[in-house]
């Protein structure tokens, strides 16, 4: 589907909002990996006397309902979500781009088969696919990464194929070929510079989808299982204590909002 994205933001404004998004994501990533150094302790260690307690020196973000340090839980949960998103998107990008290039370059039957495959995979809503896979595969994190990659590669494939098909018949590529340059040169000089910026958008969007899916399934308790720190799971665990410890519940809510906002801004004016 073609979208008219001559938005109301100027080119400069759009660049600025993208940069802001990147800064947001970077901040969250830094927090996730620095959390173990910011405070001592681990995400599973309990201090039951301090359950739902306010922040103190040992736990700058306070304690959850089982007396576990919130900063550690939040850090571990973010690391888990970000890693799943990273691996899912990386696998999807590698498969999608490679197959897209192949389809565009070879054409013919291979192209038709790949397009048919990707189109028919779109028949299942992504969440459903990930949900069912997670029910079958014992290792949930692996199931999430694999299921999400299976959903996300289609977008990379379609984008690469559509972009490269046009480029491969362009005068520039023809000239390079006539001058005797090989496929690798054509890829590096002609295809990659056009495809790369599109990939960044798709990757940011895919990562947002991945993080959202993992948290949603955790929230409805068919995702990660307790005591694993996971954003959706933390929210559902802390929800009964909303009155006693609103700040504890707001932390994972705020964290996931920041990540998704950052990734969406990085993805730019993309609507779908």
């Amino acid at each position: 589907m073609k979208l008219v994205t001559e938005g109301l933001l100027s080119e400069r404004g759009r660049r600025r909002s993208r940069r802001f998004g990147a800064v947001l994501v970077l901040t969250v990533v830094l927090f996730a990996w620095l959390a173990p150094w910011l405070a001592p302790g681990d995400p599973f260690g309990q201090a039951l006397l301090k359950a739902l307690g306010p922040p103190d020196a040992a736990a700058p973000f306070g304690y959850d309902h089982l007396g576990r340090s919130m900063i550690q839980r939040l850090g571990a949960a973010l690391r888990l979500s970000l890693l799943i998103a990273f691996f899912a998107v990386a696998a999807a990008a590698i498969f999608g781009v490679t197959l897209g290039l192949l389809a565009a370059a070879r054409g013919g039957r291979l192209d038709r088969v790949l397009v048919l495959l990707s189109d028919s995979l779109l028949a299942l809503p992504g969440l459903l696919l990930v949900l069912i896979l997670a029910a079958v595969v014992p290792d949930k994190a692996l199931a999430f990464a694999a299921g999400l990659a299976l959903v996300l590669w289609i977008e990379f494939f379609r984008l690469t194929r559509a972009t490269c098909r046009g480029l491969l018949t362009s005068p520039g590529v023809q000239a390079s070929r006539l001058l005797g340059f090989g496929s690798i040169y054509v890829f590096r000089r002609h295809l990659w510079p056009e495809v790369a910026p599109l990939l960044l958008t798709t990757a940011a969007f895919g990562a947002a989808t991945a993080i959202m899916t993992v948290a949603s399934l955790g929230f409805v308790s068919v995702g990660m299982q307790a005591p694993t720190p996971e954003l959706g799971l933390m929210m559902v665990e802390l929800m009964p204590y909303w009155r006693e410890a609103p700040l504890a519940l707001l932390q994972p809510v705020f964290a996931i909002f920041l990540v998704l906002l950052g990734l969406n801004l990085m993805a730019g004016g993309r609507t779908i």
Partner: protein
Amino acid sequence: MTAAVFRLLQALLVALFVGVTTFVMMRSLPGDMAWRIAAHRYGYDLVDADAVRLVREELALGGPALPALLQWLGDMVRLEFGTSLVSGAPVVDEISHQLGASLQLAAVALLLSLLLGPPLGITAGLRPGGSLDRGLLLLSTGLRALPQFLLGLVLILLVSVELGWLPAAGYGTGAHFVLPALTLALGLAALSARIARDATAAVAASPYYAFARQKGLGDSQVFWRHGLRNVSVPLLTCLGLQFVTLVEGVVVVESVFGWPGIGHGLVHAIFGRDVPMVQGTALVMGLAFVLVNALIDAAVRRLDPRGAAG
């Protein structure tokens, strides 16, 4: 290849995927499947080792995987899902019951989102860069960073827990509809408003629109005669894409609000390892998704016979 054949292929793929994964799920269930089925047939008091052996031989449960898989798929194609392992009721009955509740919720949510999204988007698109346009961009960006379950959570905490205006969960009266439908609708409207805004801005800037103004049509005349139908094509395609959001949303939102629909049923079935129910619900949802996509295809072709709507 015609569109119908392609959709049929999609439906087959959905069925195959659901069939194979639920088969794997069934095989990896702890405990003796034959024992469970035999107990179900003859009653828990009457089952003995001989009955279990007979069941195992009849259904080829202990045997090689391939014949068992074929049998499993065959049963599914004949829509023989069996009975729920949890409630003991036939899966078909349970699903037809749940589907009604889900369709109600989905219809209300879709209607609400159509009342909210496109009118706002079109108004904003007619004055690109205006204050409504800017506000809408900010709002939809914020909404899109809020996953549906989070939106539901925020609504429950604010409207039900703090204000006490509406029930947080349940099913039955009109009041129960408001929060889950609003949760679904806000997510959908955020997208359809953006699409409507972009499409309207493009149409309003087009030469034929300017020409219609030149020949003397008023603001509303030109919009109703030349604008709306052109705006509606991308909107309808967007509606088709939104069905993904709707199906996924139904799974999440129904679980959050305890709505007795098919998404809630699926989540519960997976949680309780109720394989026949997983099979039935996942199959129905997947097939409904394919069906709606086929219907949207047809509608778009009717609205825009140029066939360029992609």
